[in-house]
């Protein structure tokens, strides 16, 4: 057995998310079709409308942000729209206006801006096939009227 220390290169666990590393700066628009972890700098816009966006502790985002779920450990300057949930963790900083269905703010987080709670629209039920033998409530008086004419 070797006594040499082994160097291990293991990617940090981001849950399979795409990552903007802490030494990376992006100026422009980011559209993501998978979960995204930003630990670097971003200026512009970030959209991951169907996915989770995490701003890591080193992340500095000066952008408007749209995602299904947003978790902030670093800093965001810009408006945030999180259709499901927004979490602002302890030590995080968010300056901007928020629209979300649910918000979690840990003690120690800094937030400046407005909060609009937007309840998600209830899922629409698929249209049922019309049953020919069951008249609708609106149609009932007409049916009754027709019956009276027959008499």
């Amino acid at each position: 057995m070797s006594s040499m220390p082994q160097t291990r290169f293991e990617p940090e666990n981001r849950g399979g998310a795409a990552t903007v590393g802490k030494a990376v700066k992006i100026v422009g628009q980011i559209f993501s079709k998978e979960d995204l972890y930003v630990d670097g700098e971003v200026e512009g816009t970030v959209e991951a409308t169907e996915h989770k966006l995490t701003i890591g502790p080193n992340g500095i985002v000066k952008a408007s942000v749209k995602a299904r779920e947003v978790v902030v450990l670093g800093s965001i300057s810009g408006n945030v729209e999180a259709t499901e949930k927004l979490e602002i963790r302890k030590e995080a900083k968010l300056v901007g206006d928020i629209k979300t269905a649910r918000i979690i703010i840990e003690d120690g987080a800094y937030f400046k801006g407005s909060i609009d709670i937007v309840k998600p629209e209830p899922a629409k039920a698929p249209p049922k096939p019309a049953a020919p033998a069951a008249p609708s409530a609106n149609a009932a008086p007409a049916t009754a009227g027709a019956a009276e004419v027959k008499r």
Partner: protein
Amino acid sequence: MLLPGPLKGMFRSRSGQPGNGTPLHHNPVGAKAVMRNGAAHGESSTRPSRGLEEFFGQIRGQSGLTILDLGGATQKNVNFITDLGHRLYSEDFLKILHETFDADGADQSNPGRIEFFLKQTLDYPDSYFDGVLVWDILEYLAPALLTAVVERLQRIVRPRSYLLAFFHADDKQELVQCYSFKIDGVSVLEVGQQGMRRPAQLFNNRSVEKIFGKFDSVKFFLTRDRLREVIIKA
């Protein structure tokens, strides 16, 4: 002496009467507030709040209002206010106060710095808010800054809307407990102790009335602890 609960509210309408705040006690070094972690730092307790009850009583049955909370964002306050269907604006007033003035020892009477501070904290259109949770922040403002802040507050709230402010009852202290306020219910507050801080000014009831001389009315609630609750109608 402990008083048995909130005893009474004193309501005085002074519509149209201008006036300048004349603090009972002005701390000349108040511009440089001192934060000091006391032994009780971090402790919290719940207390009934007639002022809070009155504040929310005035907007009962309404939704879609715009409320400003100057105490910084807390989960409880966000939940409570947004659950009522209102839009909440959050400002961590004391943090910005510290960054603007205390950090480099700047004077709270410096006009340029006052303007910068107002831009940071209260830069909103006229008549924008339907209510403001002021909490205890006004005690940490020196006279010139206090006057500017109160004037700005009056501008950004709608006529006939309400402000809720707290003042220490003992107006002769060098250091006062700095609090965080979390709404536990329509008339219940969780009050957290954030350490001792040197107030810029302390006020008695008369001087509180003078501060808000341009507002429509000021209503005091006596409480059983060391905080006076005040409802101000714009």
